[in-house]
């Protein structure tokens, strides 16, 4: 397909418009990229400080009641899922418009599935972990801890992508939510003493789905680029 001339070039711009826009830009100075990067780093550090602080408050990783190799293997697998989700859902690659919408959709849809699938695969190597039958309260506690742990990264990611998506902000938000949920899942995996599939599904993966839905709202309210009313 050929590219035709931009006929827009034939529409002369009002002479004073340039001066008006440049004056408006000068009137509201924005820091350079170097300063922006420092602020982004601070936002990220603050966001990830939440799960780290909570993890320390809970006494650090727990290895009792579950085989240590199981905990390590699953934590490493979920760390990979969280990293991949962050790479695909939060970072923008080399485009100011971010990654394509279908990538964000994949991140939002696949992250919870990948977490559950890796948990199932890992449990096949340690079948004794399925003998565990936690009560409903245990599920609820894990949901709450995962949500709280993920809120920090979610906030940091939202700051990073604030008002940056003019194309599909809800999908971007969903991907951000899924990525932050991935980080919350990593933390809960290091602390939870239960390993049954039902518990992993309800206590660890369900909150990731919830965070993905929360992310849709964040995308609509925070990530979306909006014009002046």
């Amino acid at each position, binding site marked *: *397909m050929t590219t035709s001339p931009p006929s827009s070039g034939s529409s002369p711009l009002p002479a004073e418009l340039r001066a008006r826009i440049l004056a408006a830009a000068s009137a509201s100075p924005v820091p350079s990229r170097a300063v922006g990067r420092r602020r982004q780093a601070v936002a990220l550090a603050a966001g990830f400080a939440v799960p780290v602080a909570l993890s320390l408050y809970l006494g650090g990783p727990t290895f009792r009641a579950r085989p240590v190799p199981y905990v390590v293997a699953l934590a490493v697998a979920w760390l990979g899922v969280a990293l991949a989700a962050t790479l695909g859902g939060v970072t923008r690659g080399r485009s100011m418009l971010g990654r394509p919408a279908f990538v964000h959709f994949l991140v939002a849809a696949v992250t919870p599935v990948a977490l559950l699938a890796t948990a199932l695969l890992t449990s096949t190597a340690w079948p004794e972990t399925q003998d565990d039958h936690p009560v409903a309260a245990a599920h609820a506690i894990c949901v709450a801890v995962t949500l709280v742990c993920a809120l920090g990264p979610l906030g940091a990611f939202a700051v990073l992508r604030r008002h940056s998506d003019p194309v599909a902000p809800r999908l971007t938000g969903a991907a951000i939510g899924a990525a932050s949920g991935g980080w919350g899942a990593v933390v809960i995996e290091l602390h939870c003493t239960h390993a049954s599939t039902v518990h992993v599904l309800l206590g660890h993966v369900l909150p990731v789905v919830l965070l993905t839905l929360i992310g849709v709202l964040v995308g609509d309210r925070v990530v979306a680029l909006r014009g002046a009313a």
Partner: protein
Amino acid sequence: MVAAAPTAFAPVGAVRSFVAAAAGRGTSVSVPPRAEADVAMERYAAGDDASFGVVYDMLAPRLYGYLLRQTRQRARAEDLLQQTLLHMHRARASFIPGAEVTPWAFAIARRLLVDGIRRGKREVLSEDGELDAGRDHGPMADEVAQARELATEVQRVLARLPHSQRAAFELIKNEGLSVAEAAQVLGTTVAAVKLRAHRAYEALRGALGDVSAEGTKS
């Protein structure tokens, strides 16, 4: 707001462009230097305040043309252009090195346009579908009349198309974006944009063929 200088609607040129598009022919006019806009934005992000003027010079005419065609209101187009460029200005600190500026700018402009429409701020088109001022009376009257007839038909066909097809066609043929850039602006794949634009071409080709046939008979 200061009154804008009269702008040439140039129906003849617009129709020729559409006809060439519908016939699947390219044109020989070169596309503006996009890399300059990228470099200027890069310098602006790095701290060179003066480069924003270059960004404006590289992008504003194309964006303004796009917005003017969409809104058909000078004041609205100017307002949206200002908003678009100020959004880019505010994103200075987060500009990604090596990123393309043109699709980003068009995506912002399109979003602001869509938001404006959703808020019910879309201005009513003038009855003949042309701009509210600044008509070009240069060409011969019958040529202008014929061109306007074609332009009206083209606009009618475009208006009947699904929004996705119309948007893809306009971004590629009117605004000079590449298929890849249009895909970025619309948030879809290159293949989808190609398909949408192709369907728009086919619809236009069919409609303009009918108009030509009627003109030949008369």
